């Protein structure tokens, strides 16, 4: 609530003169809160003991004088003035029965908190800038040496690559009668027959796509059929507990490996 002493303070000549000096400088303020903080200093008390009612009076007086002097004030100063006038009335008049909303004291306490917080941040900002700073008080290395990044490439291959590579060569030598008895569909049974012996060598995670039969990968139609059949076969094998399947994320390559059996 209003403290008479502080209130008197506002009407003192000193304070009025200070407030008038402020008007000239109104452009220098960073908004109403900044102005309120400056005004509050004229009360010469700890911010925690500030009289918000007196401060409201000070502010309203300031606005009034600015108007008389035909100084144009930004809208937010006027909005603040209206709010402070409301706050003043809340603080001075007894609350009406059935009045919801926060009490004048609560509103005043929050304004005091805002002022105190702003003040604290200003002090911290000043002390931050007063610290020793790099490039001014202390320095980093003047001749930094570059770290050169070298790239080392290692090559790798899987057992399946090796076997397929060998098979590729060996099949070249063998007699290959050309037959037309196969259509463009790989059945799941065929895929399963193919996968069963193969997975014995798939100790490491291997892309499912590498299990497609040789030659089925390039033509889109063949590839689709082979992929579907191989995937179905893989699910069958997983169901039988022969393989494990994983996929990093949606649409990532599906990988399988032989399920290690204990014992």
């Amino acid at each position, binding site marked *: 609530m209003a403290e008479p002493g502080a209130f008197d303070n506002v009407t003192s000549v000193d304070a009025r003169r200070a407030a008038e000096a402020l008007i000239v400088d109104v452009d220098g303020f*960073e*908004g*109403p*809160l*900044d102005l309120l903080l400056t005004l509050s200093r004229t009360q010469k008390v700890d911010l925690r003991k500030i009289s918000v009612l007196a401060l409201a009076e000070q502010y309203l007086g300031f606005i009034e004088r600015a108007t008389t002097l035909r100084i144009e004030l930004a809208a*937010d100063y006027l*909005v*603040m003035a*209206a*709010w402070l006038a409301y706050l003043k009335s809340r603080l001075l008049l007894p609350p009406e029965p059935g009045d919801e*909303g*926060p009490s004048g004291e*609560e*509103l005043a306490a*929050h*304004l005091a*908190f*805002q002022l*105190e*917080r*702003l003040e*604290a*941040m*200003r*002090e*911290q*900002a000043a*002390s*931050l*800038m007063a*610290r*020793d*700073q*790099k*490039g*001014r*008080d*202390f*320095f*980093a*290395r*003047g001749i*930094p*040496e570059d*770290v050169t990044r070298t790239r080392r490439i290692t090559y790798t291959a899987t057992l399946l690559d090796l076997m397929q590579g060998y098979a590729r060569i060996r099949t070249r030598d063998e007699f290959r009668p050309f037959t037309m008895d196969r259509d463009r569909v790989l059945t799941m049974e065929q895929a399963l027959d193919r996968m069963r012996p193969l997975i014995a060598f798939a100790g490491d995670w291997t892309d499912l796509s590498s299990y497609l039969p040789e030659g089925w990968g390039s033509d889109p139609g063949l590839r689709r059929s082979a992929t579907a059949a191989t995937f179905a076969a893989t699910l069958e094998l997983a169901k039988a507990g022969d393989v494990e399947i994983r996929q990093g994320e949606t649409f990532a390559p599906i990988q399988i490996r032989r399920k290690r059996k204990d014992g």
Partner: protein
Amino acid sequence: MAEELEETEDSLFEAPVMAEQERMVEAILFASAEPVSVAELNARMPHGADAAEALQLLRKRYEGRGVRLVKVGDAWALRTAPDLGFLMQREVVETRKLSRAAIETLAIIAYHQPVTRAEIEEIRGVSVSRGTVDQLLEMDWIRFGRRKMSPGRPVTFVVTEEFLDHFGLESARDLPGLKELRAAGLLENRPPPGNLPDGVGVPDEDDGPEDQSEMFEE
């Protein structure tokens, strides 16, 4: 494999190795103008090296010297002793003078991080200009933090390692007066009772009660 194991064992028991590791850390930090993290040190040093231990030895070695070893966040850097700053006029790089708004905004971000633009505006009582934030981002003193889990999921700002380095801070927890401010409740995001005028006490949608606990969590 077996060979490698042997080697590691050897290096574990070789006394002079730590002195050598200290030399290595010294050389790496000397060569870099930027702070170097322990992880990066370990990655660059031979297998099995323990940069953290070497750093402790090195810090001690440089105590009272013209150059000292400082911790910056998770990283380490060599910096000249602040009391010798007067010798360095030649090295001083004139930096753009920061506006009062920028300095205050920086302090608010440092003390309240992670903090949204609306929260900064509430504390300062005025809107934060784009230029101010841009300048701080450009100086690499602030960066975007996680989005707040409040309506609109606003972005937050936090201070960077460069900020810590520039102001000689080990971590944001070492900001002066942090404890006192917190004890005084001045770092709380206290929602205003009822309505305050626009631009002064705007109850912004982002402030949640979880804010305080979020302070400086890693």
